[in-house]
């Protein structure tokens, strides 16, 4: 960003550039041209600039590359140099842009009057007020100032510490709503260290997940999706061609469970017993590693009570399933067990499982030199809240956390905040916590500020601002440092966040190469190196077994982070609200999953609001009757139920945090049906495939046998009346459905790349969702072989014999010289005949003039036309990217290279399920992928002879009784 360009003129410039894109249809483009005063050598107007940074949407710490056009970031992609993201980020990462450009972000500092009303004030006034209160707090004594916020990297921690020490305090509370305390406690108990292990799923042949939704949320969904795809890829094992064996034990069939070979329903809380039972079988059968160094005899006595038969009796999980898991786990050449939830006994069991089979150090690694614990322990958090209530804190600065929303009622967050005389809130979209703050300061979005991340040993990410601030915000670090300075702090780590971050990095630099190291880090988005696994030993002495108990008779309330909304901080982003949750396909709401038998017992019907009452509170949620939840569980996702947090989040669904006890996402619940209903909204029609070849699967056994026998004689080829055209190129895709996890990163990426509008809940109800790519979710019919759930991306198939084309009266749909099914938006008159004739139903019609409330419009990709009302639109394999690359190749006077063009969806896919390339180039990676998987290929609805350019590779499942 050029120095001389003021923020104001930047916004104007951005507005100029954006105006063309923001105004749909035939409106004239902006009539003003405003040149730079001093040109930035790195910026060519009209061409994208790329900046490496880090994603701050969750704690995984993926590296990202931001595409910046005319000073505004339009797209985020994974940083290929970063070992965690490896070039892909998830839907939440993609949607970070909507946090940046959120129209509800706080635009100016605000102060709350006694009556509760907010008044806009200037930054100078705000800072003066802050300093005034801080000054008084210092005078009042020690520890009168506190900080409460999410961990935001080592540099930020330094700043917070400096800020607090400048005010004579040490009350820094780094609060994570979804913490890792049980895992740390288990690791402490078993291995004597509190750091979190990393997993290498791709090194395993068997995976046991005990309620761990590692593909959706948790440590690092992108990385684990990538590893899981490798794990599931058919490989030659000792026993022949096979895919990784995976089991999921848990109360509900999450997306992760759906992608495992087998979902074993277990009552909430029973997972630990089942894990111990697996351990029992492993030890009884001696399916353990001889050199694991575990005291097997000690273990044997611990697990004695968990023989499969009695465990089965207690939990209702079939003994056969337990033995099958144990056999697969113990006999595998590399296996990994994962646990989710907050039962430390379960985490302990999982550690033991991995240890006795010799997989610690192989698939479960502890790395030395990792980050120190970033989050405060639950006890520290609780203590801080108590301190607030006791009036021991005068000034509380909150940044990056929403305790009022995410803290269980027992922590009495709202009451605690009320007792603090001066609460300063720094953030973007004002949330429930901001509603209780006295001073609201607009803070930079992570994409606007400097920061660093240290997700694990060997991975240090550097976050740099990728654009000028959108609003009159300041970096939280800068605010804290300025306050510290004003309070007369003598030794600050730097004057600004940038200085602190830079100092941090220069300190890591090798001797003499500091500036080079800094430049490289900024270019690469961090510094990455291999970390060696540490040698750890299992300490059997400290082990504790769960007490064998039967499943609770009462219903248990189970909540879980939503794949997109997380613990609730994703709820302000319309993309994340509108992309259907992969399994339930529900949008813009949350729901209560109830098993049909439970529903029948309670007298609950579909969409009926049920009242969920625990000892802590009561919420209501519409019922989703589904056999994919254990009869003993009522499952409600986190994320909704905001009472503030912007127009997209406010007053949607209910907040499960309100009925939880601290430290657990499960609690006994009383369920009362109410008279009211609220329709759960989904763009999905039917869930049954009806034998149609839209998504296909085959068993791994069949694949190993060499594929399906031919289904009788087919009509002789060619099925052609006319000669084929000789296209210059034929763009095509190969999509490995077996690799697809359903994570919908592709969907979010498409929204971002192609200016796909969001229609809101009302729009989805009325069947007007606009996504060009979607995850088709089907369930196999009962007693029919197949995976637990079919999940497959569906986008325009770019049919060679496209049914949509000949019916268009004006050639708006036609075939390009490169074999694409082109859609000319400005030619479209809106007859909608094309969509009627599309068997895949991938075309989308603009029912209204699409809207992007300012400044969301700044995100629009200037290379893609914004479609107006009455126009049909659809995927064209990111024609703008193809066009850009072709022009570049032509200018450089060279042929296009394979892989030079990558569509937004293929780019985003963490599992790399999508490959894109030229079908006329047999050597392209895409075509080789087809050739290598000949036995698995199919085309969607092939019998219609539309000749799609997309070849899918069948999903693989395990035949019944072999899982």
């Amino acid at each position: 960003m050029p120095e001389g360009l003021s923020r104001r003129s930047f916004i104007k410039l951005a507005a100029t550039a954006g105006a063309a894109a923001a105004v749909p249809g035939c409106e004239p483009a902006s009539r003003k041209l405003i040149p730079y005063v001093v040109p930035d050598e790195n910026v060519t107007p009209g061409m994208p600039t790329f900046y490496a940074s880090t994603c701050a949407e969750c704690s995984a710490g993926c590296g990202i590359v931001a595409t910046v056009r005319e000073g505004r970031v339009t797209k985020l992609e994974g940083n290929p140099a970063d070992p965690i993201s490896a070039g892909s980020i998830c839907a939440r990462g993609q949607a970070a842009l909507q946090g940046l450009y959120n129209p509800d972000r706080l635009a100016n500092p605000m102060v709350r009057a006694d009556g509760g009303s907010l008044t806009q004030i200037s930054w100078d006034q705000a800072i003066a007020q802050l300093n005034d209160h801080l000054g008084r707090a210092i005078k009042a004594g020690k520890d009168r100032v506190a900080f409460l916020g999410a961990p935001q990297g080592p540099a930020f921690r330094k700043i917070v510490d400096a800020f607090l020490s400048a005010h004579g305090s040490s009350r820094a509370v780094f609060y994570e709503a979804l913490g890792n305390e049980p895992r740390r406690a288990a690791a402490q108990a078993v291995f004597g260290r509190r750091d979190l292990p990393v997993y290498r799923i791709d090194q395993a042949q068997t995976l046991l997940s005990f309620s761990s939704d590692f593909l959706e949320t948790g440590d690092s969904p992108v990385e684990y999706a990538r590893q899981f795809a490798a794990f599931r890829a058919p490989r030659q094992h000792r026993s022949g061609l096979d895919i990784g064996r995976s089991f999921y034990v848990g109360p509900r069939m999450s997306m992760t469970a759906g992608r495992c070979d087998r979902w074993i329903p277990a009552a909430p809380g029973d997972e630990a017993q089942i894990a111990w039972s697996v351990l029992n079988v492993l030890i009884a059968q001696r399916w353990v590693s001889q050199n694991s160094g575990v005291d097997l005899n000690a273990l044997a006595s611990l697990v004695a009570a968990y023989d499969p038969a009695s465990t089965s009796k207690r939990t209702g999980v079939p003994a056969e399933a337990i033995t099958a898991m144990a056999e697969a786990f113990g006999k595998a050449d590399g296996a990994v067990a994962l646990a989710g939830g907050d039962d430390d006994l379960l985490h302990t069991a999982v550690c033991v499982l991995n240890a006795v089979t010799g997989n610690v150090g192989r698939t479960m690694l502890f790395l030395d030199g990792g980050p120190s614990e970033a989050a405060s322990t639950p006890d520290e958090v609780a203590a801080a809240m108590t301190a607030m209530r006791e009036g021991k804190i005068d000034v509380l600065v909150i940044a990056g956390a929403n305790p009022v929303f995410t803290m269980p009622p027992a922590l009495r967050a709202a009451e605690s905040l009320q007792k603090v005389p001066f609460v300063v809130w720094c953030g973007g979209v004002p949330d429930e916590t901001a509603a209780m703050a006295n001073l609201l300061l607009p803070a930079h979005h992570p994409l606007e500020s400097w920061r660093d991340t240290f997700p694990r040993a060997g991975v240090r990410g550097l976050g740099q601002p990728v654009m000028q601030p959108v609003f009159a915000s300041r970096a939280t670090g800068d605010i804290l440092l300025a306050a510290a300075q004003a309070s007369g702090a003598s030794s600050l780590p730097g004057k600004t966040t940038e200085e602190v971050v830079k100092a941090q990095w220069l300190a890591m630099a090798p001797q003499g190469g500091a500036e080079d190291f800094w430049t490289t880090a900024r270019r690469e988005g961090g510094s990455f190196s291999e970390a060696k696994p540490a040698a750890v030993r299992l300490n059997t002495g400290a082990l504790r077994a769960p007490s064998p108990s039967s499943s609770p008779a009462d219903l248990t309330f189970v909540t879980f982070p939503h794949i997109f909304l997380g613990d609730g901080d994703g709820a302000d982003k319309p993309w994340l609200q509108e992309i259907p949750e992969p399994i339930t396909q529900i949008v813009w709401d949350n729901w209560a999953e109830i098993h049909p038998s439970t529903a029948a017992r309670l007298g609950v019907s579909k969409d009926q609001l049920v009242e969920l009452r625990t000892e802590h509170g009561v919420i209501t949620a519409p019922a989703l009757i589904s056999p994919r939840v254990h009869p003993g569980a009522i499952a409600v996702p986190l994320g909704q139920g905001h009472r503030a947090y912007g127009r997209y989040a406010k007053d949607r669904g209910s907040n499960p945090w309100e009925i939880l006890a601290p430290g657990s996402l499960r609690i006994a619940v009383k369920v009362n049906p109410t008279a009211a209903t609220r329709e759960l909204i989904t763009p999905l029609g039917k869930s049954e495939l009806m034998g149609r070849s839209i998504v296909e699967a085959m068993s791994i056994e069949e694949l190993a046998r060499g594929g399906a026998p031919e289904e009788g004689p087919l009509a002789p080829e060619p099925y052609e009346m006319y000669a084929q055209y000789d296209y210059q190129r034929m763009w095509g895709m190969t999509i490995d459905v077996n690799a697809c996890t359903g994570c919908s990163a592709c969907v979010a990426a498409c929204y971002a790349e192609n200016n796909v509008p969001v229609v809101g809940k009302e729009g989805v109800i009325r069947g007007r969702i606009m996504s060009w790519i979607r995850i088709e979710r089907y369930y196999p019919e009962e007693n029919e072989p197949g995976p637990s759930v079919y999940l497959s991306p569906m986008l325009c198939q770019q049919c060679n014999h496209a049914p949509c084309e000949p019916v268009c009266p004006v050639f708006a749909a036609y075939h390009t010289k490169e074999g694409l099914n082109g859609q000319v938006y400005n030619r479209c008159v809106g007859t909608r005949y094309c969509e009627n004739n599309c068997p895949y139903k991938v075309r989308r019609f603009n029912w209204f003039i699409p809207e992007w409330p300012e400044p969301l419009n700044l995100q629009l990709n200037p290379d893609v036309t914004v479609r107006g009302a009455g126009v049909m639109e659809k995927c064209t394999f990111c024609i703008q990217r193809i066009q850009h690359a072709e022009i570049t190749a032509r200018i450089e006077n060279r042929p296009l290279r394979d892989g030079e063009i990558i569509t937004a969806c293929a780019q985003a896919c963490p599992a790399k399920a999508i490959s894109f390339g030229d079908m006329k180039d047999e050597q392209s990676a895409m075509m080789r992928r087809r050739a290598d998987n000949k036995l698995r290929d199919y085309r969607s609805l092939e019998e219609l002879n539309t000749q799609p350019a997309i070849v899918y590779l069948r999903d693989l499942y395990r035949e019944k009784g072999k899982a």
Partner: protein
Amino acid sequence: MNESVEIVGSFADEQACAHCIEKLRELRALAVRVFSPIPSHHIEHAIGKPKSTVRAFVLSGGILGILTALALTIGTSWEWNLVVGGKPIVSWPPFIIIMFELMILFGGISAVLSFLFNARVPAFEIEKGYSSRFSEDRFGIVVRCAEGESARVESILKDAGAEEVVREAA
């Protein structure tokens, strides 16, 4: 030379009118025009004029329509060479529909236009001998003859059943 006169006989009956025309024709008296409120085959037959040339116009209009459609469909297809659904640029089967429609359209328009042209419609002058009743319920025969022959013609008309015979200057 005698002055020419036009004698108008009006008939209530179609058949009588037709007979009268035939009689006049036998006598080589010139029936200038016949008015009738309805299209009458009898009268048309009695007059014995050749079939209308409208037919030729319609035929050529129809052919012109087909040719126009051919030129339009094929010509415009060649303008951009846009491939749709893997079909050839000139995919003639659907073009037949356009040819058919334009054949009808051009044929129909030429039928009307050639009628207007041939029948001299719109007519801006009232034909001699026209009376409003000839649009209602009377058939009229206008005979032009020399002043001297008028009496004979009048009697023929009257004999044939004319209700009324009027003489007008030519």
